[in-house]
């Protein structure tokens, strides 16, 4: 139970990511529209779940989500609300239309304005987004605001003794770092930290009535100039492959037979 004196307010950054079909074409510096889909970012799903569990454990009393994205992504935002977030903020602006927004600095400037307005005790973001995989926004945001942070967190204790978050950071090679981080802080959440729930029917119904506040850059007092960014996507291509893969052709029985021969040749299950 909470030993943090007051109940915490949590802000979760939620992104709708682009997904790509198996077969696709590249059109200029983007995947052609007809091959693109949209989904809640996998890592953010875990961040949302962690926030909702903190609320269920009586540690947090409000979970707010923030998304930079056009109206189209409201369905994804409603997913977060259906899973238990209390309300959502969506930042959008005509000036963002058609912009790749790869620049971490630009995202930081926009999200900083929201964090300043909401003043949360804890910000949870995903480790990275599944589409452009920069993995930098959460830490950049913390540094910009003078908050503490921890990247790639795969365990968070829910007691927050002395205003400190006890976390595990997942390092490479099966090693975890046990770290204490002072609040307020930004944690970037790794998959596997919990088991994200499916939204219940009741949750989905309730989500329709929850507040989804749309803010423009002007509303947030953010200069439109941030949109310019320092990064430009100038090319997109299918990776060159050095692949010299041997493909087994035919129906499943046929291919399985060929693979079985190969495996026997390699000494597997002789």
């Amino acid at each position, binding site marked *: 139970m909470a030993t943090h004196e007051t109940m915490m307010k949590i802000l979760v950054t939620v992104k709708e990511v*682009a*997904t*790509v079909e*198996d077969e696709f074409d590249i059109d200029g510096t983007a*995947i052609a529209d007809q091959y693109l889909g949209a989904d809640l970012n996998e890592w953010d799903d875990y961040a949302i779940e962690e926030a909702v569990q903190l609320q269920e454990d009586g540690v947090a009393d409000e979970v707010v989500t923030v998304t930079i994205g056009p109206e189209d992504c409201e369905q994804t935002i409603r997913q977060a609300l259906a899973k238990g977030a209390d309300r959502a903020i969506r930042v959008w602006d005509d000036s963002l239309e058609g912009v790749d927004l790869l*620049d971490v*600095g630009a995202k930081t400037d926009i999200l900083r304005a929201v964090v300043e307005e909401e003043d949360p005790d804890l910000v949870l973001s995903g480790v990275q987004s*599944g*589409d452009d*995989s*920069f*993995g*930098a*926004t959460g*830490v*950049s945001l913390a*540094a*910009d605001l003078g908050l503490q*942070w921890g*990247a*790639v967190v795969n365990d968070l204790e829910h007691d927050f003794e002395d205003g400190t978050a006890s976390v595990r950071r997942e*390092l*490479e*090679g*099966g*090693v*975890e770092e*046990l*770290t*204490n*981080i002072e609040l307020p*802080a930004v944690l970037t959440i790794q*998959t*596997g930290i919990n*088991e994200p729930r499916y939204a219940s029917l009741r949750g989905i119904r309730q989500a329709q009535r929850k507040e989804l506040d749309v803010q423009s850059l002007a509303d947030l007092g953010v200069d439109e100039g941030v949109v310019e*960014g*320092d*990064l430009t996507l*100038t090319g*997109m*291509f*299918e*990776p060159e*492959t050095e*692949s*010299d*893969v*041997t*493909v*087994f052709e035919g129906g*499943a*029985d046929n*291919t*399985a037979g060929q*693979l*079985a021969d*190969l495996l026997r040749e*390699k000494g*597997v*299950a002789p």
Partner: protein
Amino acid sequence: MSDILAVADHRRGELRDVSYEIITAGRELADQTGGELHLVIISGTVDEFAEKANRDGVDVIHTVDHGEEFNHDVYTQAISQLYDECGPQFVLAPNSVNGLDYAPAVANELDLPIVTDTVGLESDGETLVANREMYGGKVETTVEVDSGPAVATIRSAEWPTAEGTGDASIEAFDADIDEDAVGSSVNGFEEVGGGDVDISEADVLVSVGRGIEEEENLDIIRDLADALDATLSSSRPIVDNGWLPKNRQVGQSGKVVTPDVYIAIGISGAVQHVAGMKGSDTIVAINTDENAPIMDIADYAIYDDLFDVVPALTEEFQ
């Protein structure tokens, strides 16, 4: 303003391989910008690390003797101060879990753009052009950073390690670390993923990924592993879902395996997965997607539905 400042990575008393790779990446870039390559080593047994990192291509090694293990606040402060002192054009950091814990903060502190997880870097001395993947490796992109200094993180195992003894000058840098600004502390490390099986010992691995869809479906994979007398392993989502224990996970944050035969079933081949299995002798991929990145490293492939192929394959051995 044409020098490169690269940051070494170490953990629990060992320099990590990416420290030698970043020397290669940094040297290549410095040759293009016409500058020097500076390497900074922060915390730990810095003098010993500096000696090891003194390989061909490094011009100056700066050591910051402060604390034992990684702390992002110490790194951020030390790198920012060194940046102000040396004025490099580009700062390179590893795209490791720790790299991602300080590089964005350094960029923010210095008000520089950042491009992460790069697999290629080029510069005319002013502008940084980076190659990086998107959509889980389905496409590669070129990203141009506006003219001027920038921070980039490099993907591990993309550049060869620097070899050969170097003749860098080794200089202690007296960073002024503000302890009050250090808001996090490390209490220890724990190895996870132990237990009864060690997949890194197996000769044959039958490895399953998200293509399996449901926990119940794992049975067909188990049956195959049994029929082949092989060991069962998996990609991360299977472990994240709690369907298999952590000690079965192959990859960057799991185990590195080098079996004779690795059969990847319904695994896309994300870079963090490939990091753990690319050293396998023979790699077989069963995947409906011909373009899945796993195909780049597979020796044999079946482009078909695993639910058809796997039972048929099991039958071959019964």
